C-alpha cells in the first residue's frame, strides 16, 4: 500500500517545516489550540460550576456583577460565573462545531470521491444535488429543519439535531473540491497503472486517491469548522440551542434576551462573542494557510513590486566596464 501513505507522511514532515515559518498559520493554530485546551481543562481553570448561583453577603443572587466584584469575568443575569460558563461553553461550542464539521467532511469527501471516481449518472446526480443545496438559502432551511426535527419528538437531544443539520447541509463545498481533485488524479499514470494490474476500486481509492486528497480535505475541514461554529452560535442565538448545556451562542442568547446591553454588562456579552471570533478566526487562518500551501499558485504575482538591484562596488564595476 502504503507507498502513497508513506509519501503522505513524509509530506506531513515537509509540511511542518514550511508551516513553522508561517506566522498566520501559527497564529491560527494557537487560537484553535487554546480554545481546545480551555474546553478540555475547563474544570481545572474554573473555581465554580457554571450553574452555581453566586451570592452576595445576604445570600441573594449576585446578578450582573462586574469583573471587579466577582472575578475574573463577573456574573450573568442569573448570577452564574461568566468565566465558568465560557470555559464549559467551549466544550459545547467546539463539540458541535467539530462533530458537524467532521460529518460534513465525511459526507462531502465520500460523495466527492464517488462523483469524481465513478462519474456518469452518479456524478451528475451528486452534482445536481450540490447545485440545489448551493442556492437554497441555508439559514431559513436550517431554521425550519431544526424546528421540525425538534418537534417531531424523536427523542434526539437538541445538540444532536444541531450537529446533524449543520453537518448534513455543509458538505457541498467539500464534495465539489474533492470531486475536481479526484478527477485530475484519476487521469494520472499511477492510477491507470494500478487499474491495469487489476486493482479494485476500493484499493485504488484507499491507496492512491485518498493519500493525495487528504491534505485538501484537512484544509477544507478546518474551514468548515469555522462555519459550523458560527452557524451553531447563530442558531443558538435564535433560541434553538440547549439551555441546559450552554454554548457560547446560548450565552449570547441569554445575554441579549436578558438585557445585558441595557445593563452595560459588557463582561457578559463580549466574551462569548469574542470566543466565537477567536475560534472561527483560528480555523479560518489555519484553513487558509493550509489551502495556500497546497495551492502555491497564490504565493506570488507579476505586479508585486520590483526586483531589487544590488549595487556592486565601484571597483568591480570599473573592472567589468574595462573588460567589456
Amino acid at each position, binding site marked *: 500500500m502504503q507507498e502513497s501513505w508513506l509519501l503522505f507522511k513524509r509530506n506531513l514532515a515537509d509540511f511542518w517545516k514550511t508551516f513553522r515559518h508561517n506566522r498566520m498559520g501559527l497564529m491560527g493554530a494557537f487560537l484553535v489550540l487554546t480554545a481546545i485546551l480551555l474546553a478540555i481543562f475547563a474544570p481545572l481553570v474554573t473555581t465554580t460550576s457554571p450553574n452555581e448561583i453566586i451570592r452576595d453577603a445576604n445570600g441573594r443572587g449576585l446578578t450582573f456583577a462586574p469583573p471587579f466584584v466577582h472575578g475574573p469575568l463577573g456574573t450573568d443575569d442569573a448570577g452564574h460565573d461568566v468565566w465558568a460558563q465560557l470555559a464549559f461553553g467551549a466544550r459545547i461550542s467546539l463539540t458541535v462545531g467539530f462533530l458537524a464539521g467532521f460529518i460534513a467532511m465525511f459526507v462531502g469527501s465520500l460523495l466527492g470521491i464517488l462523483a469524481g471516481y465513478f462519474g456518469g449518472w452518479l456524478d451528475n446526480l451528486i452534482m*445536481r444535488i450540490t*447545485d*440545489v443545496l*448551493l*442556492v*437554497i*438559502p*441555508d*439559514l*431559513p*432551511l436550517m*431554521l*425550519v*429543519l431544526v*424546528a*421540525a426535527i425538534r*418537534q*417531531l*419528538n424523536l427523542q434526539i437531544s437538541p445538540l444532536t439535531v444541531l450537529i446533524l443539520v449543520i453537518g448534513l447541509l455543509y458538505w457541498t463545498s467539500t464534495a465539489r473540491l474533492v470531486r475536481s481533485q479526484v478527477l485530475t488524479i484519476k487521469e494520472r499514470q499511477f492510477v491507470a497503472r494500478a487499474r491495469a494490474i487489476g486493482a479494485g476500486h476500493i484499493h485504488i481509492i484507499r491507496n492512491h486517491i485518498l493519500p493525495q486528497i487528504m491534505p485538501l480535505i484537512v484544509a477544507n475541514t478546518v474551514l468548515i469548522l*469555522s462555519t459550523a461554529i*458560527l452557524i451553531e*452560535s*447563530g442558531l443558538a*442565538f*435564535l433560541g434553538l440551542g440547549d439551555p441546559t448545556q450552554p454554548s457560547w*451562542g446560548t450565552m*449570547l442568547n441569554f445575554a*441579549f434576551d436578558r438585557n445585558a*446591553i441595557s445593563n452595560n454588562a459588557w463582561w457578559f*456579552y463580549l466574551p462569548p*462573542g469574542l470566543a*466565537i*471570533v477567536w475560534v*472561527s*478566526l483560528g*480555523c*479560518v*487562518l489555519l484553513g*487558509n494557510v493550509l489551502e495556500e500551501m497546497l495551492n502555491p*499558485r*497564490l504565493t*506570488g*504575482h*507579476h*505586479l*508585486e513590486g520590483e526586483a531589487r538591484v544590488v549595487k556592486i562596488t565601484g571597483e568591480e564595476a570599473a573592472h567589468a566596464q574595462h573588460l567589456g
Partner: protein
Amino acid sequence: MSRRDLLIRKLLLSLVTMFVVVAINFVLFRILPGDPVRAVIGRNVKISAEVQQSLREQFGLDKPVFPDQFFSTLGQWARGNLGVSWSLRKPVAEILVAKLWNTLLLIGLGQILSIFLGVVLGLFAGWKRKTALDVGALTFSLIAWATPTFWLGIILLAAGSSWLGLPTRGIVSPENVGKPLYTVIPDLMAHLFLPTLTLSILYLGEYMLIMRSSILEVLSEDYILTAKAKGMSHWQVLWKHALKNAMLPIVTIVALNLGFTVSGAIYIETVFSYDGLGKLFQTALTKQDYPLLQGAFLLLAVSVILANMLADILYTYLDPRVKAS
C-alpha cells in the same frame, strides 16, 4: 458551446432546481408539527368542533397531503397565489411584496457598498500583497468573516444609539410612516445606517477576500507579464488587463452569495426590528404560519435561483469566451 446552448442549459438547470426547491418546500412544511387550525385561533379561545372543521376545509387541510394538497398547492403557486396567511389573514403574496422592498433596500444598499469597497480594497490588497495595507485588509476581512452577524449587529446597535443617537428600530420615524420613502430620505438613511453598516462590514470582508484571491490569481497569469513586458506601468496593467479578468468570477460569486446575504438579513432584521422578509420569516416560523413561511421560503429561494440565472446570463455577455462562436 454557443451562448444560446449555454443559456438554455442554465435555464433548464434553474428550472430543475426550482422544482426541487418547490418540492422540498412543500414536504418540509407538511412535516412541521402543530395543529394549523389551532395556530390560527390562538391560545385563549373556545371554539366549536364545527367551526374547526370548517376552517380545516377552508384551508384544504381535510384532503390527503399527496397528491391532492401537493398539486393544488403547486398550481396555486404557479399562478402567484401563495395562499392566505393564517396569522395575518391577508394574502401571503401581498404581505411578501410589502416586506420585499424593505429587504431589497437593506440588502441592496449593503451589497452595493460592500461590493464596491470590497472590490477596491481586495484589488489593492492583492496587488500590494504582504504590505501593511494587505495585512490590514486581510485581518479585517478574516475577523469580519469570523464574527457572528447578530453579535456585531447588537454591538453596533448599542454603540450607535448611545453615542450617535441613531434610531434603534424600524425604517422611518413614526411621524413619517405612510409617506413615500423618497420624501423622507434623511430619516430613512438615519434608520438604515446601522443595519446597512452591519451588513456592509460582513459582506465587505467576504468580497474583499474573494476579490483579493481573484486578483492574485489573475496577476500571476502570463498575460500580465506580457503586459508588463510591453512597458506598461502597474496601474495600466491593473486597469486594462487585470481588472476585467478578476471581476468576472465576482459576478458569479455575488449571486451565489445571496443565500448568505439572506441569512444575514434574518439576523439583522431581528436585531434592528426592521420589517423585512427576514423578520417575517422568523415570525412566521414561531407562529407556525405555514402559508406565510412557505411563501417566504419560496420567495427567498426563488430569488436566489433567479439571481444566479441572471448572473449566468450577465456572465455570458461579459466574458467573450462565451459570447462568440
